């Protein structure tokens, strides 16, 4: 009887392993969250809290915000790639295979669309739209890519979309909502995934 059970277990494993990207590291979510909080903190305390404190032109302010956000993105992506590569190596897989490309593609289409959309509004100086649209498009990108990876990514995506919509409704609190969405939600789901999938093995 045991061999049949083993057969079925192996079949299930193979189906999942071959159709899902499971090298995503939970810890990288936590680090992305912390980086986002630091980035938002810098933007708030250095620029937005009291614009009279510094005497930058409008354009310089936009450039500083853009550099701040880009730095957060680059650090988060870099750490995610590094840690996922390590996790893949542990299970004897390469990080970049046919599956990874599929995930990256499905993630990138809504994300790049949203990024360009937000960039246009950043240069128009409409920070409210920038904040809510980055949250919403990022959430859509996560939901779209979640078909090929852990379930938590789906729920993280839904959460980001809801926080983004809330940011449209509450324009005065939207930097706080941005910090919750990109900061605390990442830390929460990252910790969850770390303990659920990474620690056991």
């Amino acid at each position, binding site marked *: *009887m045991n061999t*049949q*059970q083993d*057969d*079925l277990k*192996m*079949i*299930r494993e*193979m*189906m999942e*392993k*071959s*159709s899902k990207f499971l090298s995503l590291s939970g810890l990288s979510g936590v680090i992305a969250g912390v980086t986002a909080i630091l980035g938002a903190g810098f933007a708030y305390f250095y620029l937005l809290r009291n614009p009279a404190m510094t005497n930058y032109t409008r354009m310089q302010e936009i450039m500083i915000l853009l550099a701040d956000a880009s730095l957060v993105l680059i650090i988060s992506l870099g750490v995610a790639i590094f840690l996922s590569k390590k996790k893949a190596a542990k299970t*004897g*897989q*390469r990080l970049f*295979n*046919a*599956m990874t490309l599929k995930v990256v593609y499905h993630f990138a289409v809504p994300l790049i669309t949203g990024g360009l959309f937000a960039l246009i509004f950043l240069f128009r100086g409409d920070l409210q739209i920038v904040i809510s649209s980055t949250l919403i498009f990022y959430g859509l990108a996560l939901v779209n890519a979640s078909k090929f990876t852990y379930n938590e990514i789906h729920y993280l995506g839904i959460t980001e979309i809801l926080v983004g919509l809330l940011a449209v409704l509450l324009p005065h609190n939207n930097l706080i909502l941005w910090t919750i969405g990109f900061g605390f939600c990442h830390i929460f789901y990252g910790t969850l995934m770390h303990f659920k999938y990474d620690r056991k093995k």
Partner: protein
Amino acid sequence: MKDIITKLNKAFESRIRLAIMSVLSVNDAVSFNYLKELLEVTDGNLASHLKALENMNYITAIKQFIGRKPNTSYQITTLGRLSFQEHLNALETLIK
């Protein structure tokens, strides 16, 4: 009982063949290299099992060139899907 055992497909007695069918049943087309990485088997071993499944018309090979490199990917056939499903059903009833 005897009835169920005869429904278990002899072609899938090998673990590697079972694994190949599992992967192909949930993916459109899978390259030789990706299969090799997933199954952690040698080239020769994988190739001989693929050939056997191909000869039974359970899978088809699609040969193409990516740049100058030959690249073979595999797809499950309708016959393959039905046989694999039947084998799975037989396995499940055996466990019950």
